[in-house]
């Protein structure tokens, strides 16, 4: 619908302070499209979960890693990529399963939430090199 094409790329430290930062940055960028507040909320949760995963799993809570949040608006769609250069995921299919987690006290629902809140989702990961989560959200009103 919109003819607008816009992009923003954020590189940030793997510090938990940046989860909120990434969430607001994504929400503000997304607001250029015709999303409802509820949809914006879903985008915020998806980005929070993806960035938390980079920090907790990818960098095992080391604060000196880099996380990239890449956002593009094109053809009325919001594309978001969250990338780290940390440990990577051995078995992506297993990681996607509800309640699968590799850390004891966690719920294993982050990737499930992302998958259910976004219209498209894809994970690309190489053990020892890092993980990229790619997601697409389309305003419901435009469909």
């Amino acid at each position: 619908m919109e003819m607008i094409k816009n992009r923003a790329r954020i590189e940030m430290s793997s510090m938990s302070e940046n989860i909120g930062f990434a969430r607001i940055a994504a929400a503000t960028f997304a607001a250029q499209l015709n999303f409802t507040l509820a949809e914006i909320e879903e985008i915020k949760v998806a980005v929070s979960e993806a960035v938390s995963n980079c920090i907790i799993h990818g960098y095992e809570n080391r604060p000196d890693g880099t996380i990239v949040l890449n956002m593009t608006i094109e053809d009325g769609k919001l594309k978001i990529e969250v990338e780290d250069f940390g440990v990577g995921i051995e078995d992506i299919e297993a990681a996607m399963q509800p309640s699968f987690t590799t850390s004891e006290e966690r719920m294993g629902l982050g990737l499930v939430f992302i998958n259910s809140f976004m219209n498209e989702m894809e994970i690309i990961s190489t053990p020892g090199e890092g993980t990229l989560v790619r997601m697409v959200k389309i305003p419901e009103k435009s469909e």
Partner: protein
Amino acid sequence: IGEIRRFIRDDGLVKVSRTLKESASRIRKFKESFIKEEGREPTVQEISQKTGLTPEDIINAMEAVQEPTSLFSPIFE
């Protein structure tokens, strides 16, 4: 310059902290009446058109008054 600074401090900015909450309640009210009339949620841009707030202000206001999202809070660290 000191003038500008003082103007913004004494006049503009007290407003800011107040308006964040005021904006949020305006947004909520507009949203409720919109849902009643249209049977669906307004988009941020529709809220922006009707309230005169920028999309950034809307996001900011909603963030400022957000209760901890209880459903998801266990997974946020």
